[in-house]
């Protein structure tokens, strides 16, 4: 129960941080900083998968409603990322890692940092590919879209690793 409250508090904190980010941190139109996908990434691998998808959908919708976005855009990208998570987990983590993280959030405490970085990067690549392709339905060029995806994944991966090491590990301990 205590852990559930912590997850809920973390989700609320991430929504607030994301609203503040979209409000005050407008670095460049090409770069979208999104910290909330981290919440979907770190949820325990043993979590019920349909519930995981629904949580991703609701979190995305919440961000779309409260931050500056188009309704459905973050929700669609986050659901795509959540659906792909079991496959990415199989690809990046060993059985030992999965057993170790049983019922635990995926933080540096439960998974080795290089593997966590790999997991984060692949998950963010799926999130931003879905987000940018949906957002750029107006017809961006191939190279512009590729640059945007690459830049977003690189910068957000660095941010999520820092968040993981500095904050989340302590918050969910």
């Amino acid at each position: 129960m205590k852990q559930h409250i912590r997850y809920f508090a973390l989700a609320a904190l991430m929504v607030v941080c994301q609203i503040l980010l979209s409000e005050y941190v407008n670095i460049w139109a090409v770069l979208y900083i999104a910290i909330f996908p981290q919440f979907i990434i770190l949820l325990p691998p043993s979590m019920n998968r349909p519930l995981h998808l629904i949580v991703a959908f609701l979190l995305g919708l919440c961000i779309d409603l409260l931050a500056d976005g188009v309704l459905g855009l973050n929700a669609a990208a986050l659901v795509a990322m959540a659906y792909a998570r079991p496959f990415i987990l199989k690809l990046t983590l060993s059985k030992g890692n999965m057993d170790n993280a049983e019922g635990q959030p995926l933080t540096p405490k439960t998974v080795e940092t290089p593997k966590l970085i790999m997991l984060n990067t692949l998950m963010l690549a799926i999130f931003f590919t879905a987000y940018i392709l949906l957002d750029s339905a107006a017809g961006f060029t191939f190279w512009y879209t590729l640059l945007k995806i690459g830049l977003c994944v690189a910068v957000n991966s660095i941010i999520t690793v820092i968040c993981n090491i500095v904050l989340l590990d302590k918050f969910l301990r």
Partner: protein
Amino acid sequence: MRIPPSLLFGVGRFLLFILLEAISVYMVCNNGIVQRYRLIGKLREVQGFFWERYAAIDEYSSLRRANGRLADDNTLLMQQLYRHKENESAPQDTVKYPFSFISAKVIRNTVNTTHNYLLINKGSKDGVEVDMGVITPAGAVGIVSAVSSRYAYVISFLNTSQQVSAKIGKSNTFGPMCWDPHREGVAILSDIPQHVEVNRLDTVYTSGYSSFYPPDIPIGVVEDSRIVNGVHLSVDVRLLQEFRNLNYVMVVKDNNKEEIEKLIKGAQ
């Protein structure tokens, strides 16, 4: 034949995934921002209240810049007035100027996404209605998408779904102009016939062929042009309006709109 439960669960998860994606994509495709406004109208009222106060502090801290911009706006207005006076000597017709304006203050303005919007402090009780154009003396700003009693939600021109009917000053040739999201402050005027002479720094104006914007509002200057598909010219236009510094706007009310729409409907 018995179907393995794992396969059933897998199919169930896939169907849930498809359902959630379909709902999300449906919302994106159905002009999500308008939908959002309708969904959370009350929330927007509350946000509007706070943004209005935040905008007031921001406005106070940027008075010097605001003064400069007001002076620029004045200059542009003077130029327009001068042109208007010049035209007064021309034969007058009996039709009155069909547009009236409602001034409003911008309390929220996004510029860094591909679906930008503005929130202004005038709503239905001030006479603002959906589908009214929003301008400044330096160009078209957007179109009102939703209104509450005290605020209006404007889809910015800096939005990939927006376009303005614009003409090149010298030749009066017109075409649709839309924002180029790759370059800040640049729009693309397309479908200009190849034979039309387009020079760098030619002024681009609103054409007036829509009920959103009055004609002859300067929007930008020609920066570059190139032939597209061997048929038309595509013109890069440097916008005059600096969207990052937008403080005050005017909502355009076309007094003849109802009559024109009625006429078009009748003709169809």
